[in-house]
């Protein structure tokens, strides 16, 4: 995408701006066939804005369109993930838009190059994986009931009782189960940490989310430890089979392990 593009996009009714996906080392190749965030009638293309040792992955967006459709969101993630398979990338949070490519180079890349270069070097040779697990509801409820006679008693109390009459008892039962599940979640997250963190350079326990959510963790794994890590995940999946359904997502861009950026004290502009 170059200046020649201007003639074809001249008919665009709204102002064009530059959407930034992430930052990569200069000179890397972006995988082919990726769909950027939609813009214009004749499709859209990813481009690279290079400045010194860095490049930003960008595409055009309309400056007056709200972003956030399913396509927009999935495109942001898919572009970054595809790049992350091949090269370290610093992902931007969704919705990073600046006026034009000059701003990308002069205001984003050039003034903060020390941080970006250092962060890319730290992430080099590492991959992020996320592990998610959902409980098999019947299995987990059975386990909770069998482990706790008081919950069993609450269950017996509502059996056969009219729904309205047992309303508050059912809420109490559900609350007790919910608490027991929270404890189980904490135990299971710890079990994941114990089994897997030795294959990772960093581990983060995240909120499992969802009623049947069991575990959610992020791992930063060295490329040469990837197969060991994946094997350990497989073993855990087998051990938990029937109780927790595990899914391994990744490798993805290292959203969860970006080195801290300190806003410089000296006024920037």
């Amino acid at each position, binding site marked *: 995408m170059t200046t020649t593009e201007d003639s074809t996009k001249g008919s665009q009714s709204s102002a064009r701006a530059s959407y930034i996906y992430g930052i990569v080392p200069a000179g890397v190749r972006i995988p082919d066939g990726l769909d950027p965030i939609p813009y214009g009638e004749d499709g859209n293309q990813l*481009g690279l804005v290079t400045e010194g040792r860095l490049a930003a992955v*960008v595409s055009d967006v309309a400056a007056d369109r709200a972003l956030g459709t*399913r396509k927009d969101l999935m495109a942001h993630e898919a572009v970054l*993930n595809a790049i992350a398979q091949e090269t370290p990338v610093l992902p931007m949070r969704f919705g990073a838009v600046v006026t034009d*490519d000059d701003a990308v180079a002069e205001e984003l890349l050039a*003034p903060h190059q020390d941080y970006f270069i250092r962060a890319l070097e730290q992430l080099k040779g590492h991959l992020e994986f996320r592990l998610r697990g959902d409980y098999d509801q*019947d299995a987990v409820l059975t386990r909770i009931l069998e482990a706790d006679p008081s919950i069993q008693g609450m269950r017996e109390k509502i059996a056969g009782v009219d729904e309205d009459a047992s309303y508050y008892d059912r809420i109490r039962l559900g*609350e007790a189960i*919910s608490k027991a599940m929270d404890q189980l979640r904490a135990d299971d997250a710890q079990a994941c940490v114990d089994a897997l963190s030795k294959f990772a350079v960093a581990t983060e326990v995240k909120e499992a989310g969802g009623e049947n959510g069991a575990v959610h963790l992020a791992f930063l794994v060295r490329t040469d430890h990837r197969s060991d890590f994946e094997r350990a995940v497989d073993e855990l999946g087998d051990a938990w089979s029937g109780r927790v359904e595990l899914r391994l997502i990744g490798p993805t861009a290292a959203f969860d392990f970006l080195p801290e950026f300190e806003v410089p004290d000296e006024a920037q502009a």
Partner: protein
Amino acid sequence: MQKEPQGGLAEVLDLILDKGLVIDAFVKVSLVGIEILTIDARIVVASVDTYLRFAEATNRLDLHAKGGKDLGQVVGGMTEGATQGGAKGKTKGVLDAGKEKWDEVRGERQSRREQA
């Protein structure tokens, strides 16, 4: 064990709206405040609705169903309640239109870009 290169929409949302470098921390002058429409797909875990569904599911469990003799009866009896307890209110579909400040866009030539 399932392996996926990318999670579903809810998982992607969870990630790209909460994580990643924030452009405002780096760019001040040429920032374009784009309106971001997001659906908060995070599910509220501890609610009365949830408690009732757990109670329902627990009531339905046939703990000693080694042979599964009475299962038909149990399941049949619970279908109504399960439907009634339904998934309404399960997902909090808040349309959160976070409007940020609007900067005027300069329609400059995008001459720096290389095709990827």
